């Protein structure tokens, strides 16, 4: 019985995910695509939950849906971007884009080796947040520290980019 | 400190002296005169009947695959005359070089580099060393044409020449590497003498010989101006300043012939046999096609360029037939041709500096105004046409008799007839040029600055005396050359 429920949940989340991702890509205004991206992130969190990766699910929802999308919305508002005007020869680009992605999807399907029934085994003992933390701080300590450095660099980069812009504006204003 | 190393070092020291603000022209003249002294001393004291003398080996750098490449110098009957040619032409070229010229030190520096490269190329007994010195001499010629050349298209011409010759050198390098890599690794060396002994006892595989010979032929052919690859030569010589044209047409062009004679013919005899018909066809093109193209030239400078390319046909005829007499004729004719072409370019330079005009239609009456120049120019023109009593004729007659022996097959005598027709064609265009420029009354171009200065007279006397000596006593060159060739080739 509970397997029926979990499969139902999976399908709901999957269809939701696909629908909203199409919406983000094809959305008219940036705000609507931002909102549909938030929904996609939430559905991905759900999918992770069905895979019994609870911590990651929560992380996904919080970091992505929360922080990243807020940043997007903030930028969209800051730059008050308008509707995207349709260019004259847009269909060429759309057609080639769709062809490319269809082809790539078809190739990926071929490569994924579907058809062998590979049921998901039950989750073994000790695969919860504690083991994840231990793994993180023992085997993957170096990458962990590197991500810290990466984030630092990102912050400095952002300040550098935006900071300069303001200086020039001030000087121009003053001159 | 063997004399050969001195030959290469003196010009380079001259460059250093020029760099240290020494008066460029006198340093260059002193250096080339000193080299000429060394070369003539070597020529007089060379009595080894074809043996190698003054050998000198200095390991240079180790290329893992190519075995030990070293600075190997050595002299025998074949490259001694070419070294003497380099000495004479370099002195007369520097005598003709103008005293006041903008950026004088770079100008004379480049000339000295060319001379050092030529000496090195002819003196070296090592495959790679020969190649490197030749490249060493090409770059300054490119600069000389580009900066101090004449004519408004000289920049594009210097580029075309440099790229063309580099392409030729690459093909040549392919041939050389093919030659080296077809040897078993343990005996793979770039020392020409060891190669010669090895290859004469057990030669390479026939079809690899064919391939190697083809690349060497086309590579050296481009450097010399073999028929379809000759278009760079007349343009770049007419655009070059006189000393550069003299050095390049007179000396550097002979490196290709020397290379074919030293490397291609002896090491791949089967290949030579295989490509013989191609070479014959190309040299017929060289003699007749370029000959008739020379007939159509309106400009005295281009005419000399085409004539020097055409005479290369005879050298190739000698190489194609491969008999002892023909090959000795090739050595003698390349020396004589070097002298006559450089002399004619010197004459052209003097006429152009006095009249500022190169088109033959508007020249004329030079012999009336400057009798000495007319007299020497007629001698040089007659020499290049092959008048007996002057060096070219002795070389040509050796080549004709030698190739008549060598080329037995029916149509090959056709190549011989084409070469003989070439003699008539060359006399037609050379005499027309002499008549247009020297005889008759003064043309549109005024001739000022009458009379040849002493340096100009000496500059012209060097090739004229050399040609007369070669004409009357050719055994100076032919005996030693024949001895060394019979030692180097396996007949």
């Amino acid at each position: 019985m509970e397997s029926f429920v979990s499969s139902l949940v999976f399908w709901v989340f999957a269809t939701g995910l696909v629908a909203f991702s199409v919406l983000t890509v094809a959305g008219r205004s940036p705000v609507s695509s931002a909102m549909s991206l938030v929904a996609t992130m939430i559905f991905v969190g759900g999918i992770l939950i069905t895979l019994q990766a609870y911590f990651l699910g929560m992380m996904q929802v919080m970091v992505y849906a929360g922080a990243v999308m807020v940043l997007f919305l903030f930028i969209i508002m800051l730059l008050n971007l308008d509707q995207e005007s349709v260019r004259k020869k847009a269909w060429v680009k759309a057609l080639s884009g769709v062809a490319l992605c269809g082809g790539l999807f078809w190739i990926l399907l071929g490569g994924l080796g579907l058809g062998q029934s590979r049921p998901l085994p039950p989750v073994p003992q000790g695969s919860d947040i504690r083991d994840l933390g231990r793994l993180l701080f023992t085997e993957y300590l170096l990458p962990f520290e590197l991500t810290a450095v990466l984030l630092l660099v990102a912050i400095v980069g952002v300040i550098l980019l935006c900071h300069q812009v303001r200086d020039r504006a001030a000087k121009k204003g003053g001159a | 400190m063997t004399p050969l190393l001195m030959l290469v070092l003196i010009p380079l020291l001259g460059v250093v002296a020029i760099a240290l603000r020494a008066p460029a022209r006198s340093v260059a003249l002193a250096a080339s005169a000193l080299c000429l002294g060394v070369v003539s001393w070597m020529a007089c004291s060379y009595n080894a009947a074809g043996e190698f003398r003054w050998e000198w080996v200095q390991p240079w750098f180790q290329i893992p695959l190519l075995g030990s490449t070293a600075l190997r110098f050595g002299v025998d009957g074949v490259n001694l005359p070419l070294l003497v040619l380099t000495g004479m032409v370099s002195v007369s070229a520097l005598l003709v070089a103008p005293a006041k010229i903008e950026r004088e030190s770079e100008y004379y520096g480049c000339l000295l580099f060319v001379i050092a490269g030529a000496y090195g190329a002819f003196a070296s007994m090592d495959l790679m060393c020969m190649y490197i010195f030749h490249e060493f001499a090409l770059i300054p010629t490119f600069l000389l044409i580009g900066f101090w050349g004449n004519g408004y298209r000289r920049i594009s011409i210097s580029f075309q020449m440099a790229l063309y010759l580099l392409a030729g050198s690459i093909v040549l390098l392919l041939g050389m590497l093919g030659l080296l890599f077809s040897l078993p690794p343990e005996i793979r060396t770039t020392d020409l003498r060891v190669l010669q002994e090895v290859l004469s006892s057990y030669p390479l595989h026939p079809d690899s010989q064919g391939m190697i010979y083809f690349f060497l032929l086309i590579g050296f052919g481009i450097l010399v101006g073999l028929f379809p690859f000759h278009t760079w030569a007349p343009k770049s010589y007419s655009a070059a300043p006189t000393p550069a044209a003299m050095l390049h047409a007179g000396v550097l062009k002979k490196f290709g012939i020397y290379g074919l004679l030293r490397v291609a013919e002896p090491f791949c005899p089967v290949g030579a046999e295989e490509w013989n018909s191609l070479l014959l066809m190309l040299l017929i093109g060289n003699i007749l096609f370029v000959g008739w193209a020379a007939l159509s030239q309106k400009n005295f400078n281009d005419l000399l360029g085409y004539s020097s390319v055409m005479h290369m046909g005879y050298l190739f005829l000698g190489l194609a037939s491969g008999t002892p007499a023909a090959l000795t004729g090739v050595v003698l004719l390349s020396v004589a041709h070097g002298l006559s072409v450089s002399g004619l370019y010197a004459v052209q330079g003097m006429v152009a500096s006095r009249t500022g005009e190169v088109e033959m239609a508007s020249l004329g009456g030079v012999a009336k105004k400057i009798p000495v120049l007319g007299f020497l120019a007629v001698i040089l023109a007659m020499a290049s046409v092959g008048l007996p009593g002057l060096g070219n004729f002795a070389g040509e007659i050796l080549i004709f008799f030698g190739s008549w022996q060598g080329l037995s097959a029916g149509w090959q005598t056709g190549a011989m007839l084409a070469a003989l027709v070439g003699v008539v064609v060359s006399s037609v265009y050379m005499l027309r040029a002499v008549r247009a420029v020297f005889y008759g009354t003064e043309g549109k171009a005024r001739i000022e600055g009458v009379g040849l200065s002493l340096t100009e007279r000496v500059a012209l006397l060097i090739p004229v005396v050399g040609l007369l000596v070669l004409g009357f006593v050719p055994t100076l060159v032919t005996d030693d050359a024949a001895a060394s060739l019979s030692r180097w080739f396996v007949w």
Partner: protein
Amino acid sequence: MPEKYWWLILVLPLLSAASVALVLRPFRAVSMGVSLLSAWVSFAVALWGFWSQAGSPESVRWMSVGGLSFQFGLVTDGLAKVMLLVVTGVGALIHLFSTGYMSEDPGKSRFFGCLSLFMFSMSGVVLSDNLAMTFVFWELVGVSSYLLIGFWFEKPSASAAANKAFIVNRIGDFGFMIGILTVWSLLGSLNYTQLQSFANDGRVAAVPAGLLTVAVLGLFCGAVGKSAQVPLHVWLPDAMEGPTPVSALIHAATMVAAGIYFLCRVFFLVELSPVALSVIAGIGGLTAIFAALIATQQDDIKRVLAYSTLSQLGYMVLAVGLGSPAAGMFHLTTHAFFKALLFLGAGSLIHAAHHEQNIWKMGGLGKKMPVTFVTFAIGTLALCGCPFLSGFYSKDAILIVAYETNRTLFWVALGTALLTSFYMTRLFVVSFLGEPRGDGAAHAHESPWAMTLPLVVLALLSIVGGYGSAITGALGLQGLPHTHPMAAVGGSVAVFVLGSLAGFLVYRGAKEEKITFKILKSKFYVDEIYEVCVVRASDAIAAVVGWMDTWIIGGVMVRGVALCASVTGQVFRIMQAGNVQVYAFWFALGVAVMLYWMMGR
């Protein structure tokens, strides 16, 4: 050790030429003296050589490589001695004559330098003992005639004539070299004595006839070039641009005779191929009649004499072709004397009439210049074949040989003899008798002794020349006719009388040209034909080839390579559209293709 003295004949003129060229150029008198001295001393040595039985000195090695060796030795048999006498004798006389003729010319030292160079190369041709050396001196003679014809190089016509002479000679030498190479490859040696021994012991007969004919015709082609036979005769009339002593020395007596001398020298080869003999005889006869016809219509005194030389050379070649080199050589010797006399006479006429060369502007010079008048008369009579003069005997010998061997050529020879006496009398009558028609001729006066003395000496030689049995005996050649058939001798005398009478009657007191044949006056349009189908054609080919060289090979091939390099550059440039998305697209496409390829689908 008397053999060594033979070398003097070569070394002296060479030294004088070299000293004039290098040192003596500014001192005109000294250079003239040196060259005169060298000419007379070598004549003395030739005379000594002729009487003494000195053998030839051993040969000097010029160059030797492997099997091929070039020696340089002297041949001193009868033929060479006679020819040497002629060359040095006439040369010395002409040196003396030119001291007078060129007295006021500024370039005099250069002239004498070139004359000495010519004497050196001509005696070299006579004395050399192998084919290669003959070729060497052959070309040297060509160059010295180029220098002498183009002596007044300011005159464009003179330099053009010099070029023409040298190039036509070069074409002849082209055939000559082919002949030498074939002889060498067939018989393996170049030395005359060796070749003679091969001919005697039948080795030459063993050679395939076709190749032997090619060899002999090649050698004959050299003679055609040098002795101006029909196809290559165009340079001789233009060579009259040179000073008159040059025309006398080179284009009458010595250089043009080199061809015939060489044919006699290699006659042992020539006679072995009957085809070649008939070709030689044919060309000789054709040249004789052809030139005689043209000579009748020429107005320039030197052109008339030039064409008459052409026709006499035709005679000699005819004689050799008919198998009697002795008659040819005999006629050559006598012809050298009276033709040199006629040319020098014409020279003194021109000198006196202030460089007037057109005979219709001369006239009445007989009274003013008695010595030239008498000597010129003797020369004309000798040339026309007046009995008891040298011309008669030598021309008669040829007529007899022709009569005995080839009847058609006999009539051709007879016709030429008729024309010869006609145009010579025309020349003589118009220029010497009647009243002076040009102002130059009006106040002409006799030339100085330096010019008239050689005329007198040559006149004596023209008279005595015919009887000199010593000359014919010394030749050592076969083929001199012994019988004297009445028809030939009678015919030649009749023709002489007829021709001179006709000439005298037509042109006595004539003011301008009576009979005009357009075709003859313009020399059968040979020059124009050559100009169009040789010179203009080769210039057209040259233009096409030159255009092809600069545009097809230089342009298409070289520029083509450069062009396709830049074209590929252009193509790839279009891909860099600058738009980020396009890059992303290409990137994704690349990934897809790679995946597709990796999975080996």
